[in-house]
């Protein structure tokens, strides 16, 4: 059984396995959602403090911008995913 120890399974390719494709997409989508919405929120807060005398709505608007942007990106990535051409290209 020395052979078995020698012939260790080769390291997995960096490419994700096919069944994990959607999961990865979800991961990216959620992370980007959080980051972007938080960024928008922070910008909105800054703006509200600097320009709008600490009103609330600029912060909400910023959050909305960030979340919307992230949503759009995720949507596009999901849409792109199943078309066979892009699949072939990605390979």
């Amino acid at each position, binding site marked *: 059984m020395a052979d078995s120890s020698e012939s260790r399974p080769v390291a997995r390719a960096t490419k994700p396995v*096919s*069944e994990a494709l*959607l999961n990865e997409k979800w991961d990216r*989508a959620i992370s980007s959602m959080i980051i972007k919405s938080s960024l928008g929120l922070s910008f909105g807060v800054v703006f509200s403090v600097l320009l709008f005398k600490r009103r609330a709505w600029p912060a909400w608007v910023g959050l909305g911008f960030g979340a919307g942007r992230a949503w759009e990106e995720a949507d596009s990535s999901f849409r792109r995913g199943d078309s066979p051409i892009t699949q072939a290209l990605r390979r």
Partner: protein
Amino acid sequence: MLRSSFAPSRQLLSSPVRQRIPSQWLSKAGASSRLSGQRFFADSKPPTASPTPATPSSESTIPHDSIPKPAEQENKTPESSPTPAPRKPGRFRRFLLYLILTSGIAYGGSIFLALKSDNFHDFFTEYIPYGEECVLYFEERDFYRRFPNASRHSNRIVAAPREEGKPITIPSKSGLSWKVTSEESGSDVSKSGPHMSAQAETTKSESPVAKAKEEKPAKVEEAKPAPKEEKKEEKKAVSLDEPRQPAVATINTIEFLKAQDGDESVVQELVKTFNDIVTVISADENAGKFSAPVSKAKEELQKIGEKINSIRSEAGKAAQDEINKAHATFDESAKELVRQFEEVRASDIALFREEFEAERERLAFAYQDKINVELQRAQDLAEQRLKNELVEQAIELNRKYVHDVKDLVEREREGRLSKLNELTANIAELEKLTTGWSNVIDTNLKTQQLQVAVDAVRSVVERTETPRPFVRELVAVKELAADDPVVEAAIASINPTAYQRGIPSTAMLVERFRRVAGEVRKASLLPEDAGIASHAASMVLSKVMFKKDALADGDDVESILVRTETLLEEGQIDAAAREMNALQGWAKILSKDWLADVRRVLEVKQALEVIETEARLQCLRVE
């Protein structure tokens, strides 16, 4: 220059008046170039100039002269002043003189040139009036001078073709007749001065035939000369060469003495002188006086001639005799010579025959010798051949004997040795069999080894928990299979990654399928080109879906998954893969890797099966 010189001449032609000649010559001699300007003036002038010289008085004189020829009209100066009438006659005469002179010279020169060069001849005869006639005349003259004799005959021959235009008429007196000849002779007589002597000449020079003819009349004519005369005249006329006698000679002429044929020169001389005398006498008025003595003298002369003739005949006879004698002597000597020749020839013949005989004998001997020698040789040769044949026969016999002995020995041997041969053949067969068996054993071994190797591969592939590469095992299989095309093809059909990384076992496949099935189920409700919202919805909704049982058949994702799972659990990987292959959209994408794994496993398994069957086949093939 030429044109300017021509213009005035033409003008002069047109103008009825002739200019003054001296001035013209002067201008020509002086400076033609100097007057060029004036000539121009003249060109324009003609209408004005014409009235001045043209006076009616001068006009009247013109008809007497010949019209001036264009060749003579050189460039004339129009500056000729109007000439006064009184000086005209002298000047005119001079002009005429010059004209005639120049034209004569010009014609003479051109005729001379025409005779010399053909080109000029053509030009001259073509363009100059009367030029042809002049040249022809001179040519004819030249021709007559060169061939004076040809004038009579060649005149007709040459002239006839040249004047073709003229109608040819034959004159009435042409043709053959005695008259023509007489005319000619008459002309001859008239040409030569003393025609009496010429007559004598002709008589003397006559052909012997003519003389013979005239001899008879000469003899008869002595008695009556007058009538003879006429006869003779006729005869002479026939002879063609005789001159016609003038009318004066018809009085009573005395007959000439005729020279005998073949007479000696002395006699001829005599006759000639006598004839001269006779002519003189006959010319005289009183010829009758002399007729008697003359006839006497003639007789004498005749006699002399006869005598001479007789002497000659005698001499001829004597000569004939001598010639005959000489002939006789010659004949004799010739005979003698012939006889001598005969003798010499006979002796020669005898000699030659003897020699010939001797030679022949010698040759015969030589041939005899040769024949003897050849006979000897032939005999020798024959003997030799016979000997050779004997030797050959002996050899042949020997060989036959040996052969017989060998045959006997062989026959003896074959009786016993044939059995030995059979034994060896049997042994060889046995050997072959043994070797065949060893072959069979070898192949068996090989196939067994192959099967072992295949088993090893199978064990590596199937009985491992984790995928392991099985390159070595495959290499062993390939080596054992030597170069079996089937095995090679089977190995080539395996994906290289399969034996480099190994293949998952069935259990692993099932486990992985479980994972994949969960993911696929999550994405089972997705529509085509789904966004994030539909993804989320599908994820949530798939959790609350009812499970289907295995026997359900339908094209939806859930039923496919269930069926595949049951198939996998049954161990039908092939069918499971086929089921999963029917998925569409995201489900297919998600299950792609798993499908690839399954395919690899299937490939390996198929190849192994092929190799195994091949090995088995080889086992069977051995017998």
